[in-house]
């Protein structure tokens, strides 16, 4: 079943067309890679899907809902959640509070509940903390749950970014360069984590520069260049595609 469907999407900023009328579909349970040279429009694509920037023209449909034109919080509510390329956290919060804050949508917030501290609210808060700790165990940060987020090493901060997104209980998770700045060991753990996320029934779409990660992890890859899709297919198909080889000759001579 198609989860995310993009029809003729165009994104333009003041005369510069970052994405030029692309069509794409992401299936349920898929890990999709989005690659392309710098400036190809990958992050712009994520910004369009998550509602950060308004769509210039075209349609984005997510699980039967038209989401182009919606605000970020409305899109998150429908189950499409993203992470950011640069580490984006609630820096002065503890790790577990970061995840609890991400769990906003599912923790039944109510102003009167907060004010009166009803039993229901207290239970909801305890549940939310419980849930946050489960998520932290899942991403492998369970034993540092009470540290301050800004004190964590880069790899852990990246993982925490994903934990926050998971707390919003997505159906489709968009990861913007999850392995950027990581060493081999950390990358391997991240790949493993993304697989486990998919196994819980969440589809994943990711932007990544590290070809080893993309080729080993993704079921299907879409290649963007200058705002157009130049190839789409399994890792093996994409690797053999002449246009892809050409596009990558400038930046990375070897698509391995």
């Amino acid at each position, binding site marked *: 079943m198609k989860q995310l469907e993009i029809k003729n999407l165009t994104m333009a900023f003041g005369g510069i067309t970052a994405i030029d009328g692309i069509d794409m579909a992401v299936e349920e349970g898929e890990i999709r890679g989005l690659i392309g040279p710098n400036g190809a429009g990958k992050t712009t694509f994520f910004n369009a899907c*998550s509602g950060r920037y308004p769509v210039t023209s075209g349609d984005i449909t997510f699980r039967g809902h038209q989401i182009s034109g919606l605000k970020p919080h409305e899109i998150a509510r429908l189950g499409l959640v993203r992470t950011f390329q640069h580490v984006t956290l609630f820096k002065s919060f503890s790790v577990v509070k970061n995840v609890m804050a991400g769990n*906003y949508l599912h923790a039944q917030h109510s*102003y009167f509940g*907060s004010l009166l501290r009803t039993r229901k609210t207290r239970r909801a808060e305890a549940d939310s903390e419980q849930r946050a700790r489960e998520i932290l165990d899942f991403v492998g940060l369970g034993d540092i749950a009470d540290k301050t987020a800004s004190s964590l090493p880069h790899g852990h901060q990246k993982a925490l970014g994903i934990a926050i997104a998971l707390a919003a209980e997505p159906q489709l998770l968009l990861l913007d360069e999850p392995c950027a700045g990581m060493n081999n060991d950390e990358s391997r753990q991240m790949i493993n984590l993304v697989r486990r996320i998919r196994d819980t029934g969440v589809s994943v779409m990711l932007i990544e520069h590290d070809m080893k990660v993309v080729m080993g992890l993704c079921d299907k890859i879409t290649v963007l260049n200058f705002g157009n899709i130049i190839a789409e297919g399994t890792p093996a198909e994409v690797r053999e595609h002449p246009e892809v080889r050409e596009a990558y000759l400038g930046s990375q001579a070897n698509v391995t």
Partner: protein
Amino acid sequence: MQHLDRAHKAAWTGLLIVALLLPALVAFDTYLIHVAITITLNVALATSMWMIWSLGFISFAHAGFMGIGAYTSALLLTKLGISMWYGLWLGALMSGLIALIISVPLMRTRAVYFFMASWAVGEVIKRNFAYFRDLFGGWDGVFDINPAKINLGFVQIDFADRVAYYYLSLFFVALIVLIIHRTNSSRTGMMYWSIHENELLAQHTGVNVFREKVIAFTVACTLAGLTGALYAHYQTYISPKSFDIWKSEFALVHVIVGGLTTVGGPVAGAISLTIVDELLRATGYFRTMFFGVVLIATVILLPGGLETIPGRLRRLFQRSGK
């Protein structure tokens, strides 16, 4: 969510007990009770300003909204004869209503622009009081805003009496601090601080940032309006000058000197600085100068304000204990 630990609870209980016994502790000295009432009003203004800060911005329209509450309640009494008991609530509501209407366009601005736009809003509110002389009395202000009396049958309480007014004021201010504390220490507060920390991320995890900002601003201004109404009936006289930018500035000084991360900060800041202010009352311009020095010294030497002192002391003792 941040459950109070025992030391905090003890401190709050102690403060409340002192506050309740205060008239007896100062031997019913009318001047000292006057200082105590001023403290309660300053605490209320500083905490509600801090509530707005918990979403990451500073509003200099705060004294203006305090003024709306004060003028509403004052005019209801002097023009229509509606007593303080209704005036307090209606003043708060009026302030909240205007805050709600203004915050919709105001929240489109961000960071520095918000600060400056709020500053403009505060100034316009004050100028309106000054300009529409028939309604608001112009620069001369409104007189004879008497507090109410209640007759409980066996005993009659006249709130023109300072002790009685002190308890009335204490009750409302405790209520304001409790509301803000409850909000802040729950999921709502966590949501506010997540907007403060990282608006973009909060938005992308499903928080309707605009809506929450409007609600928080409206609630904080409603509380400021209530404070204003309390102020009006205590002073029995108000003028546009009572609600000018200095009032917002001093509330900000209280918040910064007290501390920015917990509700204890503005409370501590407002209490200590109001006392210092009264001690320096006779010194004229040196008083203002002193406030400036304290403010700069706090930012440079004690970042985080008074609320960090217990933690600093604890660390100091732990180090010397080893």
